[in-house]
Structures are given as C-alpha cells and as structure tokens.
C-alpha cells in the first residue's frame, strides 16, 4: 500500500497537469473544441469502451502491429545472424540494408496501399517491412560482436559449428535482438497508426482521424489516451520480458528509456 502510494506520489506532476487542464477547460479559458475537460474526455472514453468501438479498433491496431513485428522478427533475426556468419549472405543483403535502413519507411505507405489495398494485409506488411531493418541491423551487430574468447572456449571444450551457433552466438546476440525490438516496437505503432490515418480500414488511427474530420474533439483525445496507454503497456511488457529473459545480462536490469532509430 505504502509502495503504491509512493509510486503515485512520484507521478505528482502528471496529476497536477491533468488538474490544471481540467480547471482551465472548465473555466472556459480555452474553447472546448480545442481542449475539452479531462472529465469529458474520460466520459467519452468510457462510452466508447462501453459500445465496443474503442476496444475493437484498439484490438485491430494491436494485432496488426504484433503480427507485422512477428513477421519482421521471423525474417530479420535469421537474416542478421546469417549476415554476420556467412559471407555470401552478407554480400547479398548488405547493400539493401545500407539503402533501406535510413529510409523513412513511413514514406512507403502509398505504395503498400497501392499494392495491397487498405485492409489488414497492407498494414501488416508495411509494419513487417518497416521494422525489419532495425531488427536485422541490431541482430547483425550483436552476432558480429560475439566475443572471440567465448567462441574459442566453446571450441576448446569440444563444441562444433552448430553448437557454437546455438549455445554461443544466439544467446550472446539476444540482448542486441531485444535492443532491436525496443526500436521496432514503437516504430510498429507509428506505422500502424499512420497507415490507418492515411488509408482508413479501421483501427485506432482511423478513429483518431475520423473524429478529427468531424470535430469530435473528446473522441480525438479519448483515442489519444488509448494510444498512449497501448504504447506505455507495450514498452513495459517488453522491459519486463527483457528483465526475465536477460537476467544474466549486465545492463538488462536497469531500465533505460532510450530508443534508437
């Protein structure tokens, strides 16, 4: 109980801000079209949850993001390890990574819409393609940087090529894969929401942009709160998974709020 109280207290500025927001809006200092009171937004949010729209569309966005991420990881992790271990794979993939990594994948939204329509498929493939590069690059760097002495130790103890891959290279690369996922996760949400805002086809992004078009400001804010919540929960879950899986790692236990693009 005391612990919960202390955590809440440490977030005092957030509550303070919400309170000021409520006061300013209630007093009519800003037009409700621009800044409705927090209470109105929460009420609207509750109504949208009750009639199911917010839940359904959040679900759509989340599924698209996660399936896309899963695809990217399924392709990107083997590709990154392959690039680090096999010269031919490196030769073939490296130019594409060099070109593709710095390109803002968000600019490909129109092409994906053109090719795959405006439904699940185009969004999922966009997320998969967009998050592929940070995962490949992080995995590649991890697998490249595996300590020579670890590999040597394993060899000296009798490990063969396959054992080195499964028992040394992959575990040693795991922290880097997590770093890649930490970048890819917010990126997946950005791509999903933007794609939904541009193309429609349901999802939270569509709710946001649609509400904006019809000037339903409380809905815009309520959806934004939902987006914030999803982003926050995703991030925490990933950190939690990292802490559990990478308990052995020097830095895994200290939570860093850092992202690389």
């Amino acid at each position, binding site marked *: 109980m005391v612990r919960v109280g202390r955590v809440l207290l440490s*977030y005092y500025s957030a509550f303070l801000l919400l309170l000021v927001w409520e006061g300013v809006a209630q007093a009519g200092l800003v037009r409700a079209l621009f800044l409705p009171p927090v209470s109105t937004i929460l009420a609207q949010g509750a109504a949208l949850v009750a009639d199911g729209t917010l839940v359904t569309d959040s679900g759509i966005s989340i599924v698209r993001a996660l399936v896309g991420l899963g695809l990217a990881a399924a392709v990107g992790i083997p590709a990154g390890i392959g690039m680090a271990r096999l010269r031919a794979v490196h030769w073939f993939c490296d130019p*594409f990574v060099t070109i593709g990594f710095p390109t803002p994948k968000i600019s490909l939204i129109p092409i994906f819409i053109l090719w795959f329509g405006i439904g699940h498929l185009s969004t999922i493939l966009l997320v998969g393609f967009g998050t592929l590069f940070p995962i490949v690059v992080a995995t590649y760097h991890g697998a490249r940087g595996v300590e020579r002495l670890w590999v040597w130790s394993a060899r000296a103890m009798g490990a063969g090529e396959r054992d080195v891959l499964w028992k040394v290279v992959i575990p040693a690369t795991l922290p880097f894969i997590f770093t890649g996922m930490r970048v890819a996760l917010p990126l997946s949400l950005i791509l999903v929401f933007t794609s939904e*805002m*541009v193309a429609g086809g349901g999802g939270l992004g569509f709710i946001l*942009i649609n509400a*904006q078009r019809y000037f339903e400001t409380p809905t815009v804010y309520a959806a934004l709160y939902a987006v914030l919540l999803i982003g*926050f929960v995703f991030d925490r879950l990933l950190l939690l998974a990292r802490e559990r899986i990478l308990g052995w790692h020097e830095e895994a236990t200290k939570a860093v709020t850092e*992202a690389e693009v």
Partner: protein
Amino acid sequence: MARTLQGSVPVLIVAGLWELTSRLALIDPEHLPPVSAILRAWADLVFSGHILPHLAATLYRALAGLLLAIVFGVALGVWMARSRPVERFVDPLITLTYPLPKVAIIPLTMLWFGIGHLAKILVVFIGCMMPVIIHTFHGARGADHLLIWSAQAMGAGERAILRKVILPAALPAVLSGIRIALAFSFVIVIGAELVASRAGLGEAKTGSMTTCSPRSWLS
C-alpha cells in the same frame, strides 16, 4: 570505389528481376511499374522542378521542428540534471509520454492549427524533443563528479561549471540524441504530410513513383 561497385551487384540483380517481372507482365505493370519507368518518372520530376518546392517544404518543416527541439531539449535536459525538483517534475511526464507514437498527435495539431506548416512543425518539435531531453539529461548527469568538484575547488561558479564542465561532458550524448531526433523528424514530417494532405489513391500512385528514393537520399 571498388567496394561500391561490388555492393551494387546484388541491387542490380534484384532491379533486373524486377524489370523482367514487370516487362513480362508476371505482375500487372500497373501495380509494379518497371524500374526503368520509375527512374524515368523520377528523373522527370527532378528536372521539371515540380518536386523541388515540396522537398523544400518538407525540409523546412523537419528542420524547423528539429532546431526548436534541440534548443528547448538541451536546455531542459541540463536543467533537469542540475536540479532535483525540476527532475522530479519533468521525469514522470517524459516516462509517461515517451512511448506515445508521436504521429498520433497529428490529428490534434491539425485540429488546433489546420494543415499548414505550424501543425507539422509542432508535431516534429514534440517528437524530437524527447530523445534530445533524455540524452542530454543522461549526459549531463553522467558528468564526472571529480571534474565538477575540481572545478569548484578551483573557484568556478555554477555558470562556469555549466559551460566548461557539464556541457562538454554531455556533448557526445547530446549529439547521439540529436542523431535520433533527426531520424524522428523525417518520419514524423512525412507521416504528417501523408495524413494532412489526405492522399487519395490517385495521388498515392504518383506518390509511389516519387517518394521511393529522394527521401532516402536526405536521411
């Protein structure tokens, strides 16, 4: 030079396959135009000068937002590192809002400021500020205490310590924050432009020919 040449071989292979697929109409060329057609369309756009004003607008929005974010973010980051109360106030706000995909604010800024420059610059500013603040804060907080103590021992005041010890110590972190923010700025500005221009499918088709390459050249 030799490496660039060697590196271009796989790209040429894939481009060749693409060209072939499209030429042989294995996939409807309407959907997958041949590489040569894309390159021609792209060259036309560049030489006709149609793309330049758009490019300029994008650059202006991204860089204006980024610059604001750097100025504000560095100041706030250093202030947080030097003052506990400021840290206690700002830190939870950043922790809570950092995981928010910033593009989601676009509808809001459109609501406030319409679809002009301001709405986009504001989103870029908000999005870019986060990494700058966080990196500056960690860099400034990580400044070696022995250095600060020796500076104090030699009679340096708070201003001198800031300028001569903390800022130089934080600089590498600040730069890596800016590097991340730079990448953010283009993602956000392109997202904002896509959303705010309400690109229809017709526009998207020409867009597919243009957005492919020039963006990547910029970042």
